[in-house]
Structure formats: structure tokens, C-alpha cells
């Protein structure tokens, strides 16, 4: 992992949906009038039509880009057998933050390893706030570093910037997977994420539900979480990893601890956490042993006593005094400050908490960045921001605001074909077999498939980030850190 010379990014392996009819934005219809002239097959560059045994089929309706198509088949069809309309399912998907466009384009990235060619708004949602109000400023006429080959653009990130003897860890993409616990998601989901992290030379966090033995082969790519419930945290799990994350709060629900409803506490989960089957599991909202910064330092010292080389990440939400929290964490010995904003959260976080507590991440990150800079310690600590990062453009924006890297969450699940139905917490029944511990539903997804999907999505992210950097005239993602001048906020444009 430290041997970057040997590291190669994996290749994209096309990985289509695991369901029979993938959802697309448009739907093509072919009438009986079709004469099988094959014109549409030749014309369509998205591979919507196929010809088989003398008949033409619309095999991949979901790939159709609708009116964005430069040469629409339905206009060209000599007999007018083709018609195109919006897929009625499409508008039922998602919400303002995760628009149907974003969901479908993420699925597309997970399938193909590239951003969608046309027809989908893949850069932002339409929440009317947050990243959706920010734009990256691309000056017209600016060609940037167009002539530099993609592989020479550096998007890697050094995680240990303290001068101590902790592991020297470089991740090859500026993001890693945020915590999702065993119990809240299935083991296949966890394995997919971790195997993808390994392939991409980065990390993935276990969440607070323990450290299943299945993950042992990937120890070097695991961040284990020490959260307020201390579920599944044992000395050996801390010793096993290179990064330990303290979860003080979650951006989606600051002031509330983790919560696993009784129905999700299956025998497997109960065994992992040592709890009682069928009883809901609450994590307390604070660490009962940490009520102030000197307690926090003691807490960090403790982890270092168990695993002296481990990097310590401190995950906090974004209260108004987040800057002081960050600097306090740094002085207590943290290597990584992980700011968790409020746009994230799956269905398990209460709506009222998701929408009303904590400072928006786009305010918190610059605040922390400036404060740490003024304190003279900005280059000694890695700032990771997370919570509602959906697209490579979100990544670029948050880094330009002052983070070093990004932590992903919901986007991973979307790559695994989450449809954002917001029923993660209800019983065992994730309709897509992602956030479930039900043995039958879990089988809806295999981790080999999941791994490829995630690798594809993140490769697409990386490719897009490189494109953005080149356009901005930068050769390294580190140049982008804190470059607020590269951004514009639609409400405050001059």
C-alpha cells in the first residue's frame, strides 16, 4: 500500500444491473409496424437496439438518452414504429437531494465505469442548497493541463501528516468508505465495499457493529470504528487495523446515538455484538467516558496504547463550534479529522434530525480549514469531509472548500442499486437486499458483483476528478484544497 510504484488501478469490468429491467430515464416503444430494416440499430450509439434472428428488439431501453440523442431513432424510423417518452417509474425515484437523474447516472457509472454520455444530470441534485448551489468555475477559454496524460494527474492523499511514527498511509483516490455497521447492512454489502477499497488502494470503515471475520483478509484496508456503543470493539479488532475511527457523532443525526431496530437484530447480528436477539440496540449519544477534551486525549492515548502505530481519525458532526472541536482533536493526537455533514444519512436516520441539526457541511469545512490554518496546524492534519457526497463534482467542491479528502456513504449503496426508498430501518426488508440482515434477502446480492459495481463507480469518479483538475490547470488534487476561488455560490454571485 505504501509501495505506490506497484499500485495499479483496476480495469473497468462492465457490470450490468442484477435485475431484469434496469430503470432508465426514457422508455422506447416499438410497434408491430417495424420492418426490421435495422436502421435504428446502426444509428443508436448507446446500444439500445439489437437485432437477433431477423428481428429488432429494444434490449436496453434504460440506455436511451431521449431528446439528448443527436440522431434519434424514433425520428428516423421509416415506418414510424418507434416512439420515445419519459419512463413513468423514473420520476417516482429518489428525492431532491438524490434526484432520479443522480440515481440513474450513478447506476450507469457503476455499470460502465464512466459518467453517462448524455441525457442525465450527473453532476448535482436539485435540493436548492448545499453542493447544489455551488458551481465549479471553469473559465471559458481555459484549457488547463489538457496535454498532460491522465495518469500523471495525482489524486492520491497522504493520511498521516503528523510527524509521528504512525503508519505512513497514502490512499490512491481522495476518498474512502464511511462507516456502515454489520447489522445495518448485509455482510455482502460490507464485503463489496471493502474489496472495492482494496482494489482502489483506499479504505473502508466497519461502522460500529463489530468486525466480522470475513473481513480479515482485508485488514490493511479496514478502518474500524470505536463508537459510543462500543459494539463489537475488542482489543484485537483495534490491533488488527491501520486506522481507528472514533465516532463522536454522525452528521445525519448529531446528538443521537446509533440505533438498530429490534427486527434487524438477527441471531447473527446479536452474536457479533453480544446482544439479545430481537431487542433494539441503542448507542448512547456521547461516549460516557468522554465528556471533555482531556478525556478525549486520554481516549486517543488508550487506542495508541493498544495499537501504537494506528492512525486515529475523529469523526464529529458539525456543530457551530466545529472549529474548536477540530483543533482540540488535533492537539489530542488525532491524525484525521472527519467532519460529517448533515446531508447524508440513510433511511435509518430520523428525518427531523437529518434536516434540522448541525451546520451544513459547506459552511463547516471552510470554517475548520481557516481555523486550522490560522492555528498553523493545517498541514499537520488531514481533514476528511463527508455526509451527502454524491458525485465527483461534490468531491471537487468539498475539497475546494478546504477538505483534503472525502468520505462516501450513500453513494456506495446507490452503486449497489439502492433506490432510496428510505425503508432501511423498517424490519429486515431492504427491497434490494443491501441494508438487510435477513438471510434470504441478503442473497439478492453477491459481493463479487457489488465489488465490480463499486470499483466502476469510483473509477468513474476518479476519471471525472482528473478531468476537472486538468480543466482547472492543476496536476494534483492537493492544489485544489481550500481554493474557494474555484467555486461560486449561486446565491452570492457577483
Amino acid at each position, binding site marked *: 500500500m505504501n509501495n505506490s510504484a506497484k499500485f495499479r488501478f483496476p480495469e473497468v469490468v462492465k457490470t450490468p444491473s442484477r435485475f431484469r429491467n434496469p430503470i432508465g430515464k426514457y422508455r422506447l416503444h416499438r410497434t408491430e409496424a417495424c420492418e426490421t430494416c435495422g436502421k435504428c440499430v446502426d444509428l443508436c450509439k448507446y446500444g439500445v437496439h439489437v437485432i437477433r434472428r431477423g428481428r429488432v428488439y429494444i434490449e436496453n431501453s434504460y440506455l436511451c438518452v431521449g431528446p439528448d440523442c443527436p440522431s434519434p431513432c424514433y425520428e428516423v424510423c421509416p415506418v414510424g414504429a418507434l416512439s420515445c417518452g419519459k419512463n413513468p417509474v423514473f420520476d417516482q425515484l429518489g428525492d431532491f437531494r438524490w434526484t432520479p437523474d443522480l440515481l440513474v447516472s450513478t447506476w450507469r457509472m457503476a455499470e460502465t465505469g464512466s459518467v453517462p454520455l448524455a441525457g442525465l444530470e450527473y453532476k448535482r441534485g436539485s435540493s436548492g442548497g448545499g453542493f447544489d448551489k455551488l458551481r465549479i468555475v471553469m473559465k471559458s477559454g481555459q484549457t488547463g493541463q489538457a496535454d498532460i496524460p491522465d495518469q500523471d494527474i495525482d489524486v492520491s492523499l497522504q493520511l498521516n501528516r503528523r510527524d509521528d511514527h504512525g503508519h505512513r498511509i497514502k490512499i490512491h483516490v481522495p476518498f474512502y468508505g464511511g462507516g456502515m455497521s454489520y447489522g445495518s447492512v448485509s455482510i455482502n454489502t460490507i464485503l463489496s465495499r471493502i474489496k472495492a477499497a482494496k482494489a482502489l488502494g483506499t479504505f473502508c470503515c466497519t461502522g460500529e457493529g463489530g468486525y466480522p471475520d470475513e473481513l480479515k483478509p482485508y485488514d490493511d484496508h479496514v478502518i474500524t470504528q470505536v463508537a459510543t456503543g462500543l459494539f463489537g470493539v475488542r482489543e484485537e479488532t483495534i490491533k488488527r487495523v491501520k486506522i481507528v475511527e472514533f465516532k463522536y457523532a454522525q452528521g445525519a443525526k448529531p446528538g443521537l446515538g446509533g440505533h438498530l431496530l429490534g427486527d434487524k437484530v438477527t441471531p447473527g447480528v446479536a452474536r457479533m455484538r453480544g446482544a439479545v436477539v430481537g431487542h433494539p440496540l441503542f448507542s448512547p449519544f456521547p461516549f460516557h467516558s468522554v465528556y471533555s477534551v482531556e478525556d478525549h486525549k486520554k481516549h486517543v492515548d488508550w487506542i495508541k*496504547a493498544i495499537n501504537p502505530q494506528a492512525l486515529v481519525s475523529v469523526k464529529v458532526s458539525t456543530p457551530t463550534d466545529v472549529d474548536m472541536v477540530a483543533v482540540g482533536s488535533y492537539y489530542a493526537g488525532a491524525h484525521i479529522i472527519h467532519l460529517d455533514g448533515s446531508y447524508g444519512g440513510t433511511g435509518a436516520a430520523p428525518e427531523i434530525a437529518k434536516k434540522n441539526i448541525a451546520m451544513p457541511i459547506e459552511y463547516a469545512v471552510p470554517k475548520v480549514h481557516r481555523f486550522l490554518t490560522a492555528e498553523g496546524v493545517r498541514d499537520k492534519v488531514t481533514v476528511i469531509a463527508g455526509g451527502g457526497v454524491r458525485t465527483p463534482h461534490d468531491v471537487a467542491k468539498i475539497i475546494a472548500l478546504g477538505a483534503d479528502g472525502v468520505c462516501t456513504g450513500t453513494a456506495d449503496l446507490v452503486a449497489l442499486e439502492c433506490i432510496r426508498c428510505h425503508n432501511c430501518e423498517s424490519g429486515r426488508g431492504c427491497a434490494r437486499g443491501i441494508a438487510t440482515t435477513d438471510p434470504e434477502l441478503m442473497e439478492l446480492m453477491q459481493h463479487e458483483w457489488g465489488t465490480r459495481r463499486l470499483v466502476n463507480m469510483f473509477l468513474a469518479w476518479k476519471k471525472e476528478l482528473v478531468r476537472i483538475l486538468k480543466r482547472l490547470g492543476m496536476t494534483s488534487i492537493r492544489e485544489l484544497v481550500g481554493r474557494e476561488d474555484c467555486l461560486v455560490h449561486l446565491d452570492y454571485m457577483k
Partner: protein
Amino acid sequence: MIMSEHQNISNIITSRKSLVKDLPQRSCFETVAEGGCGVTGFACSIPVRGKHIFEPSRQMHNRGNGRGGGIAAMGFDHRMLGVSEDILENGYILQIALLEDGVLDELERLFIEPFFNVDFSEALPHVDDYRDIRGLDVRPPDVWRFFVRVKPDVLKAFVDSNGLNGLRPRQAEDEFVFQNSFKINKMFYEAAGRQRAFVLSHGRNFFILKIVGYAEQVVQYYKLDDFKAHIWIAHQRYPTKGRVWHPAGAHPFVGLNEALVHNGDFANYHSVTEYLRQKNLYPQFLTDTEVSALLFDLYSRTYGYPLEYVIEALAPTMERDFNKLPAEKQKIYRAIQATHIHGSPDGPWFFIIARNNTENDRLELIGITDTAMLRPQVFALHDGQVQVGLVCSEKQAIDATLKSLSEEDPRVGTVADLYWNARGGSYTDGGAFVFGLEKNGGSLERRLTCADKFGSSVTVQEGQFPYLPGRVYYLMEDESRERFDIARFFDLQRPDLLFTYLKDGIRLWDYADLMDCLKEIRGWALKADAHFDVALDALTLLLDRRYPTYDKKRRSVLQMIAQTIETILRGLPSLMTQNEKGAYRKIDWETREFFRGPVHNEKVLIIDGSLFPPEGDHCDSRLMAEAYLRGWRRFIVFGLKGQRFHGCGFGPDCGGVRIDIYGSSGDYLASGIDGMTVYVHGNAQDQLGQIMKSGKLIIYGDVGQTFMYGAKGGEVYVMGNAAGRPLINAVGSPRVIINGTCLDYLAESFMAGDPLNGGGFVILNGVEFDNEGTVHPLDTPYPGANLFSLASGGAIYVRDPYNLIDDQQLNGGEIAPLDQRDWELILPMLEENQRLFGISIENDLLMVNAVKKNPLDVYRKVRPQQKDDIAKDGLEEWED
């Protein structure tokens, strides 16, 4: 009368209006820095030197970060200050920190000369160059000290213009001094702007000093090593913000006659500030501690509340504790709460206050904990010719203070008579204790008393005498050197018999005999390993167990034994030497370089922890983990001063490892252990046994906050009490006996399965030892209002023959009678408990009022509410 008092109060408050009316109205009050801290304080019946606050402060380094330290000293010998006794007693010590050159003249001209008669003034001596003090980066302020009284005509004008005629002259003078200092600060100090000077303190017979640095550097810089005072408090600050922070932001803060230090922070700083503003009080230094001092002063001086009511206003009595109060108190407390709840600090806090109670001519050291008990706190009382009352955030600071005191004055022992925790906002002790120093005739020596919030005093057993090394103990002429018949115990390898012999000896002998005998044992111990084992085992029993000490003070006996054990351990061969025979090897800070694995028949690694740092790469617990990897399996650690993390970092499956801990053990001990056995010989501190997976932990004393948080398993025996929040979020199969009780929140969110099928449980015996070493039940086995809240698994077995635990204490739990299977489950634990601590099942636990009872009638089981009760089948719409 009542009306006029009310009028007085309101006049005082009105008189302050002119001070604050031109200050900016802010919509939101925020502290400019946050952070936690370490606090320590002690009161002594004789004035003692400032150097004794040095060591406890130094040991709390890891609770501060060197960006704010301060001390307060109270109760002086007038000769040390160069004034007459009358001036010291009656004058105000106005102490001003000067941050700019030349500011003094202006300040004197504007605020001192016109108003005060200055009896004496001087610049405080200090070290010439602050850089001579290691680690001190910011030059401390120059401090000027004035002994002042308000000029009579000025005071009269003040009284007349503000309608304060109803006040006693002294009250008016107090108020004048208070307001004048406010004006000084207002003019010369802007928290966020130019800072030229500020008032450190302005009360009688005490002063405050604070710097940007560590508290003990105050002592060094202002040369207080030899300066004597009755009460010392110190504060290490850990602000998170700012490379350079100003000394005025450091603690202690002053009201008028009280200095307050604080550990924790408030969640409602804004609302407390708003509340104070209604009383025309306005914080000037933007920290929550300052508002605490203002609150305290408001209640005690302006409103004239007795201390009990001040404490109630700060830490209200809630819930079940409130219901347990007598009706009369409930009425008053309700009124206090209704009036002052908006000013009640919310959030984790613990105050230590040094107060000159001038009305009653008493000096006081007060510790108050918040209702939720979120900060660690320990009180201790040392009685004897020199009495000391101590209150600290950690026990290690108490130990350090006593050690420091005893080195100078052997009348002070290294062990206190009593150690205890306060239960915040409770009906039992009110969460606060007051050490009072009463005048004792004309001499400097005062008499120390200790009482809780309600005034019930804390006393030690009478009729026992401490060991006084100054006294000469003669050997009788016919006594031979070998007068102790102990050889046989070593020959027979019977430490238990040696223990009994010594126990009897304590009754028959005087201190000199005991000392001689211990000396002889020491001689034996160093002869051979087998003898060493016998000696150590017997002495450790003497240290751990409770037995009558007759005319001797237990603390003196313990001190001798602890010293003997230390001397024996120090005498063992060092790890440096290669050719020694025997299984024991010692390592200390100096010889740590020679660290190696065991060779030949070396078996036990003895670690002298005294000089190791408390945490970090070079701490002794890290060394132990390394030693484990190199093959050591048996450890004895001694000489500790709060070093942390012992037993951590060994990794999984450490069966066969045994650690014995002597001395002031530190936080996080045995956190995460898996399989090893740890003996703590004495009281333990906070956060023990967190996430512990398996193994055995035995504590011969009390244990601190959040004990076994998130534990997964293990077998644990606690001889005494646990402080707040033991076993929160514990899962799996932890099995714990607590022989005393807990402050509150025992086993919240306990999830440890079904105890009858391999799950976990807690046995709460609710007993204590008296001075004779016999076991007595406590008034109630569990005083807290929250027992087993929100638990979904496991059980608590409470020894509660009188059914004192009631439903009010449960939230999601239910009380069930014990059945035979439960008894069979807990019996083996109780047997081991009997073996370890001498708490007999037959004679102590099952004995109720001298009658032996059936266990099923003595113990009760608290278990999670059975699901069937809550979840009906959904059909019933109406029940009758």
C-alpha cells in the same frame, strides 16, 4: 424585615446597572474557548507551603495543555505578607495583573487612590527570567498587590447614592470593591481586544494567580514554594483554542471572597449569561467558569443564601432524590429551583471553591458536582494532629498531595482516613462536601471539619492514634533482636498464618513493634524467592483486607505496610544483572534500556512505575505489552502515580498472564483485556475494564467512573463502591460483583443476554466494612434513581432483604423474586468473593438482623421487562 432585605438586594442589583448599561447587547453569548481540565484542592489545619500544590498539579499535566494554569491560596500568616494581623483579616487583598508597562500609574490614579486607603502595596516577587522555568513560553504578568480598605467618605457616598443604607457597612464595602474591580476590568481589559491589566482577586485573606502555562509554574514563577497558606487550589486548563491565550481566561475565577475552579463545560452558557444579565452581572472574560463564580457570588453574597441553598441553586435535586427529601426541604428546594433553574449550569461540571466565609470567620474548601455526575471527583479526609481535607478530579492527585505533605511534615500520612465520591444532586449527600477551617483560639492552627450539603458531618473513628515518627519508641532492655516468632511461617510457606499473626500483632504491639516486625519480614523476604512469596502474600493481604486496627489508625498501618512492600520490591535484583538467581527481576525508568525477555528461570517482571510518564510511547504500560511479547507472563507494578493503561495492548487470549498493581493506579486500567488476571491492590480510578472481553479483575477498594463501559465479558470483583455509570452498554457475559454500591446509572442499556444461559449479570451486595473490619449493610443497597435503565438483557442481583429497591428506580426493568437457579448461578461468584475479600456468605450476606435467612429472601433479581407484558396481541381495545 423581610421587605427591607428584599429592598436591599434589589438596590444592590440596581446599583450595578450603571456598570453594564453601556456594554453592547449581544444576541448570543459564546465562550471563546472551550475545554476540559484538571482540578485539585486541599485545606490543611496548619498553613502549608505552596510547593505541596506542585506535585498534584504536575501529575494533572495530562488534564491540561499548558495554556492556562492558576492557583488560589487562602488563609495566611500575616507575617509572611508583611502586614499586621488586623490588615490581613479586615483588608481586601486587591491583586492586579499588569500586562503593559506603565499601566499601573494610570490604574492607581483612576481606581485606587481616589477610593481606597492603601495599607500596604508591593510588586509580587518573581523569577527574573521566565525562560528559566522549563516549558514556560509566555511571560506571566507582573502582579501588584494592594491591601486596601474603602475610604469612609467614599463608602458613605456610595451607600447614599445607591440607597444601600440597609446594608451592614461591610456588605456595602464588599459591593464597592466588587464594582470597582468590574470597572477596572472594563477599562483595562477587553477579552477580544487590547489587554492592559486585570484584577486577579480582591477578597480577604486570599489571592489568585494565573498564567499561560501550567499551574505548578505559577508556584515556581511567583516563588510560592515556601509561601504558606491553609487552602490551596489549582487548575490545569485545556482550552482547545488559541496558541496564545490570555491569563485572564485561566482559572480560578473570583466572586468576591471565593475563588472557583471548574472542570467541564456548560451547554447553556448563553442562558446563564442572560440570567446574570438580568441581575446586572456581565462576564468579562468569556469563559463558563467566570459565570460560575458570578453565580456563586450572586447567591451567597447578594442574596445571602446559606451554602446549602447556593448548592441547590447550582445543582438542583431531581427526580427520585427530590421525592426522598423531607417535605420541609422539598418546599424550599422547589422555590429555589423555580427561581433559579435558568441560572443552573447544565452540562458536565465539577467545582472546587475556596471561600473565605467572613461572616462566620471560617475558611472553606468546597467541592460540588453536577446532578448528572459527569465529571470525575474524589474527596478525602486525613485526620490527626495535622488535618487535611482534599478534593480532586482524580485520586492520584490526592495521593500526590499527601505524599508531598508527608515528606515535609511526618505528622501527615501518605494515606487518608477516608476516601469517597459525592452523589450529585442527591438526597443522600447533596453532591457537595465542605471542608471548614474554624479558628482555634489565637494560634495559626485551625480546626478542620467536614460536612455534606445538608450539614451532616463526615468524621473518622475516634480513639485511634496515628503513627508519629517523631516519637521515640524504646526497645526494652531484655528484648532480644529476634523477638518475633515468624521463621516458622516462612518454613511452612504459610502467608495466611503470617497474616493472622500480624493481625494479632496490631492489637498487642505498639507502632514500634509493628515496624520492627515488618523490618524483620523484609529481611526474610529478600533471602529467597520462596520467602519473598510468603512475605509479599501476607503483606498484600494486610493491605487488601479489612480487620480491626484497635488503637492504631488504619491509615498509619496501611502506610507502613505499603512502604514495606515498596522497600521489598525495590530490593529485588534488577533486570540489568544477568547472573542473579531467582525468578524476580525489577525494571525501572533508569534501567528500561536494558529491557529484555526472561532467561533461565526468570518469571516475574517487577516494574517500578514511579518515574514513567503516564501515557505515550514511553509509558510503563507500553513496556509491559512489549514484555508480554518477549515472553514475560507475570507482572508486579508498584510505585505508581496515576500511570494509565495497565493491561492494555496485550492482544487477544492472554490466559495465564497475571498483573498485580500497587500504588495509585491510573485510568483505563485493564481496558480491553482478554483472558488475563489483574489485581488492583487499593482504590482504582476511572474507565476501568472498558470493552473487557474476558479474564478476571479484582479491585481491593473503590472504582471510578464508567467502569466496564461496553464490556463483553470477564469476571470482576469490586470490594467497595463503583462511582457513576458502571457497566453502561455492556454486552455478552460480564459477571460482576460490587460489594458496595454505585452513585447512579448502574448497567444502563445492559444487553448481556440471559444470565441463566451464559449471559452476564451484576451482583450488588450493598454492604460496607466498618472500622472493626466487620460487614454491615448500607442504608440502601442502591441510592440512585436509575437502575438498569433501558436494559434488554442480563440481570442485577441485589442484596435487598428489606425490599428497598422500588419501581421508581427502574426504567424498563422489573423486579422478580430469586429462584433456585439464580442462586446456583451466583453462588460460585459469591464464594470467590468470600475468598478474595473475606465477605462471608453465611455470616455476612445471608445474615439479616442477626438472623440467617434463605438466600431467596435476601437477594432480588432485576431483569428486563418481559416482552409479553408490553406486546399484547393487538386485539384488546378495552380492559377492565
